[in-house]
C-alpha cells in the first residue's frame, strides 16, 4: 500500500494526485505492476526509466486514458475508478502533452487550442478564442495562430500541444516524453516552456529523460523499471547517491548520452 505516509513539511502542500497500487495488463503482459505515489500541489514529479518500463502506460492510467486493471487514482479526493459518467469531466482536469504532439492536423493552431474549451467546457467561440490566445502567449506561439500544424517545426508543434493542454486550465499537466521526438536543436524551446510552467507552480508529472530539467525543477523523481517503482527520491538523492544498482546503471548510461547531446534523439526516426 502507500509507500510514503510521512507528512510533508508543515502540511502546507496538498496532494493533487494519488496513485494507489495501479496495475495494467496487456493480455498476459504486466506492464504496470502495483505502482503507488503522490503528487503535491505545485510540484514537478519526473518519472524516468528504460523503455518498456511502463512509464507511458502509467501516465495514461493517471488520467484514465487507459483504465487500470487494478488499483485506482485519486484526483484530490475523487476516486477516478468510481467516477462513472463524470470521468470525461475529471479527465479534462488533466492536461496531457504527447511525445508525437498529436495536434489536430485539420485545424489551425488557434483552433487546436480553442476546441477543448469550446467543446468540453461549452464556452462561446469568443471566450474560447481569448482563452486560447492567452495560452498561446504563454508558450510564445501567438504569432502562429493561423498556421496549420504541418507548417510548424517539431518544437513549435510541441509548444502548441502544451498550449492546448493549458487552455483547459487543468489541475495537473502530464508530459509523455515531450522532447524525445524532437531534433536536438528544438528541445531547448520546449524545455524552457516547461521550466516556465514549473516556476509558475503548475503541478506537473513528466515522463522524461531530460535530467537537466529534472535537476532544475523536480521535487521528486521516480525511477521505474519492468513495471515497478525501483527508487524514488529528490534529484539530489539520485545524482549524489542512488542506492539501487539498476538506478545507478541507468543513470550512468544516461550521463554517457548526455555528453553527446545529439545521440538523444533515438525516437526521432520519422514518426508521423
Amino acid at each position: 500500500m502507500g509507500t510514503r505516509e510521512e507528512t510533508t513539511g508543515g502540511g502546507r502542500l496538498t496532494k493533487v494526485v494519488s496513485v494507489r497500487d495501479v496495475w495494467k495488463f496487456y493480455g498476459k503482459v504486466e506492464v504496470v505492476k502495483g505502482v503507488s505515489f503522490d503528487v503535491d500541489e505545485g510540484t514537478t514529479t519526473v518519472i524516468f526509466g528504460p523503455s518498456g518500463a511502463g512509464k507511458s502506460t502509467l501516465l495514461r492510467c493517471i488520467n484514465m486514458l487507459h483504465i487500470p486493471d487494478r488499483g485506482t487514482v485519486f484526483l484530490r479526493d475523487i476516486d477516478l475508478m468510481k467516477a462513472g459518467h463524470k470521468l470525461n469531466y475529471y479527465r479534462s482536469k488533466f492536461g496531457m502533452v504527447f511525445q508525437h504532439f498529436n495536434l489536430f492536423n485539420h485545424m489551425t493552431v488557434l483552433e487546436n487550442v480553442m476546441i477543448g474549451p469550446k467543446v468540453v467546457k461549452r464556452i462561446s467561440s469568443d471566450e474560447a478564442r481569448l482563452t486560447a490566445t492567452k495560452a498561446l502567449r504563454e508558450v510564445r506561439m501567438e504569432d502562429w495562430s493561423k498556421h496549420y500544424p504541418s507548417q510548424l517545426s517539431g518544437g513549435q508543434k510541441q509548444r502548441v500541444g502544451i498550449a492546448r493542454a493549458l487552455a483547459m486550465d487543468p489541475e495537473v499537466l502530464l508530459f509523455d516524453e515531450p522532447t524525445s521526438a524532437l531534433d536536438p536543436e528544438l528541445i531547448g524551446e520546449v524545455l524552457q516552456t516547461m521550466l516556465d510552467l514549473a516556476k509558475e507552480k503548475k503541478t506537473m508529472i513528466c515522463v522524461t529523460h531530460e535530467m537537466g530539467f529534472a535537476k532544475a525543477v523536480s521535487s521528486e523523481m521516480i525511477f521505474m523499471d519492468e513495471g515497478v517503482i525501483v527508487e524514488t527520491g529528490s534529484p539530489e538523492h539520485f545524482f549524489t547517491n542512488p542506492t539501487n544498482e539498476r538506478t545507478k546503471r541507468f543513470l550512468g548510461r544516461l550521463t554517457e548520452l548526455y555528453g553527446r547531446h545529439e545521440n538523444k534523439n533515438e525516437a526521432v526516426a520519422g514518426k508521423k
Partner: protein
Amino acid sequence: MTGTPHLPPFFDTILSHLAFIIEGLPVTLSLTVYGMSLGFLLGLPMAILRVYGGANGRLFVVSYERVMRSVPPLVLIFVFYFGIHTSVFDVPGFLAVALALGLCSSGYQSQIFRGALESIGSGQMDAARSLGMGRLQAIRFIVAPQALRFALPSWANELATMIKDTSLAFVVGVAELMRRTDYVRAATYDPLIPFLLVAGIYFAIVFPITRIAGTWGREKKRLVVGG
C-alpha cells in the same frame, strides 16, 4: 463519313438524338445524388460502428457489408420494384433504383470510411479524449473531419461507379440517359450511333471525376501529414 454528301443531315440527326438523350441527364444525376446520399448516411455510421463499436458492432457491420457488396444492384432494384411494389405498397421505379443503389453503395462507402477512420492515428483520439471529450465528440470534431478528407479520392471513385450504375434504372422504365437512348434506338432502328452517343456522355461526366480522384489520391499523403 468524310466528304459524303450526307454530312449535314447526319450531323442533324446526331444533334437531335443528343438533344433527346440529354434530357435524361437530370434524372441520371438526381439518381446519383440520392444513391450517394443514402450510401453516405448509412455507410458513415456503419464505418464508425465498425471501428469503434467493439466486437458486436464489427460483426454486425461486416455482415451487412458482405451482404450489400455481394448482391447485384439489379437484384435489389427488382426486389424493391417488383417484390415490395406488389405486396406492400407502390414503389415507383425512381425510388426503387435510388434505394437499391444507395444500399449497395452503403456497403462500399462503409468500407471506404472504415479505411479512412483507421488511417487517422490513435494519437488524435487520445489527444481529444485527454481534453475531456467523450468518444462521440472526439469522432465528430477530430477524427471524422480528417477521415472524410482522407476518404475523398475513394469516395469520388465510388461516385463514378454510381453514375454508371444508374443506367440500370433503364430496366424499370426510369427515363434517365440509358432509357432515353433506347427510345432513340427503337424509333430509328439505329443500333449503334445512339449508344455511342450515350457512351460519350457518360465518359464526359465520369472521366473528369476519376481524374480529379486520381489527383486527390496522389495528394492524399499531404492531407494527413503533420503531427
